[in-house]
């Protein structure tokens, strides 16, 4: 318990954020906005990890390190994703995810 804020609050918040991200990922057509939704999802997970770490297992720093790595991976992912998006834009002159269905049957 941390001064009146139980862990449930954090978890509910992160869940809400997570599913907002999911919603965004499902409805947005623009690849960059989808990328942004993914950032939301990642952040919600980070909050989760940190809250667990601080409130349930304060002896070690596992949650923190994981968050750290997540941020690193997110950075890598964002840079690669944007490189891909730009590449796609060069080829198709738009970045609408619905137009990218080369992989269908």
């Amino acid at each position, binding site marked *: 318990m941390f001064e009146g804020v139980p862990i449930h609050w954090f978890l509910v918040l992160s869940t809400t954020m997570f599913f907002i991200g*999911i919603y965004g990922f*499902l*409805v947005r057509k623009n690849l960059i906005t989808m990328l942004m939704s993914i950032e939301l999802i990642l952040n919600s997970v980070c909050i989760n990890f940190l809250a667990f770490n601080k409130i349930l297992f304060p002896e070690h720093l596992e949650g923190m390190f994981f968050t750290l790595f997540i941020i690193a991976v997110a950075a890598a992912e964002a840079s690669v994703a944007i490189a891909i998006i730009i590449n796609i834009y060069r080829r198709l002159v738009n970045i609408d*995810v*619905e137009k*990218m269905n*080369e992989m*269908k*049957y």
Partner: protein
Amino acid sequence: MIDFSYTIWILLIPLIVFVVTGLTGNRFKPIVTGIIGTTGLGVVFLLSVFTAYKYFFVLDKVDGAFQRLLALNFTWLHLTDKLHIDIGVLLDPISVMMLIVISTVSFMVHIYSLGYMKGEKGFARFFSILSLFSFSMLGLVIATNIFQMYIFWELVGVSSFLLIGFYYERDSAVAASKKAFIVTRFADLGFLIGILVLSYTTGTFDFITLTGPNSPAFTSGQGIMFLGMSTMTWSMLFIFMGGAGKSAMFPLHIWLPDAMEGPTPVSALIHAATMVVAGVYLVARMFPIFHHQESALEIVAWVGGFTSLFAAVIACTQYDIKRVLAYSTMSQIGMMMLALGVSGYGGEDGLGYMASMFHLFTHAFFKALLFLGAGAIIHAVHSNYMNEMGGLRKYLPITHATFLIACLAIAGIPPFAGFFSKDEILVAVFHHNKILFAMAYLVAGMTAFYMFRLYFNVFWGKDQHYHHTPHEAPATMTIPLIILAIGSTFAGFIPFTKLVTSDSQPFETNTEWGIAIPAVFIALVGIGIATMLYMKKSETSKKISIALGGFYIAAFNKFYIDQVYLFITKKILFNLVSRPIAWFDRHIVDGAMNQIAFVTNVASDKIKGFQSGQLQQYALAFVSGVIGLALLFTYLWTN
């Protein structure tokens, strides 16, 4: 004990000739093939005569009866513990007699063919198949067991098929050969079933066991099986079906007239003298068993009698000389069957059996002679139709003389061969059944009538307009005619009762003049009517045929039996069985398979829409799946 094992060469020589000539084919000059074939058959002829001499006159009798001995026997195929197919040589009076008949006629036909077939394209092929036929026919008569007989029976059928279809470019010949093979094949199915039943019941194929005095066929399978007849009766009937097919008995006779499409020597050899009597020979071979199954034997008699009359009626109306002869053959074979059917077993009771064999023997000579004579006529005028002939006696003196002898022989005028054998048959039938006797008596008269109708139409009357003057055939053709004419004249004096009898015991008979004289009388009546109607071309015959009306037309059209068969095969078997099956296969069975494939295809077509390439749809499915699983494992499926 005399060693008869050399008799296997009677079989092997024609086989070797067949293989050699068949493989070398056209590499030799045709005539070389012909000479090889003829020489081979000549040797076979000599061997047969030698065997007959040794068998009948040198070999000791046992208890006054001729022995039945296995000259050679080896196993060809094991079937079950008890049943095995052997190939070997069985010598007994009828097989030795048949050896003589076949080798003589075959040899004569070979010589004749050297002249008749000269210049034909398939000369080598012809002689090659002729050797195959001789091999098969000889193998058939010396068979030691019923399965060997069946084997050679089939081979005989196929050589007949090949020879009928010799002029393979002629559609009618092809059709006739097909018909002959399929009809006899159908009959052979009966034969096969008969063999299966017989062999299962008795546990053997072997003739000596089957027809010996302690035959298992007399004891087993006597219980009622089906339609009030015993197993053994049924098996005999099935076997008789095979015989009836080969011997052109009604209603399996339809192939024989058409078989005349083959070259004339073939008709003489196969479709007059040898192969078609195989059925008679078969019944004679199995006679002790038939004798134990009276109802089967009765059927044999009636089928024989009816065919005989039926064919004689048709023969009176035909114009194609070979067809007349073909129906005449049917009629005579019917007589032989009839004689077997009315015969008893042993001693004088076996008169019918003896008469049948006797008639078979004499018939071979005069019928072969008739066919070969017809061949000489056709050779001279290039036509088969008697209304395109006339006055030929001036041009073909030898043919004319020999033909006349044959006609007299078949009509049963003494002292020619036919008189003696036919008389015995009539006696045997008279003592058995009066209705059958009346039929046989009528047939005797009709035989004389139609033969002389043929004779007068061809050799007397006015000359027709021939393309070129008819001339006598070459010596290769006339010599066989003369030899056979001698046979037809004197064969009747052979004492058959001493040689070939049902139980191999010689017995004595006297000519029953009470039957012989009326028989000769009715033959003379027949000849008389023919003389009146046909010696000079007159309109009377036409008037009579018109007066007979529908009956004449029906007889002229062979009582429409062919049409019935055509209906059954073409309409029913082809259109109502085969065609629906082909349709069923393509559309139902195969259709079902295709439908399965089609359904799979359609289903996959529908399902593949799920893989749309739309990332967000995948994601939606993924999320829903995760939620679903989470729901499942956290709330619904918790234990």
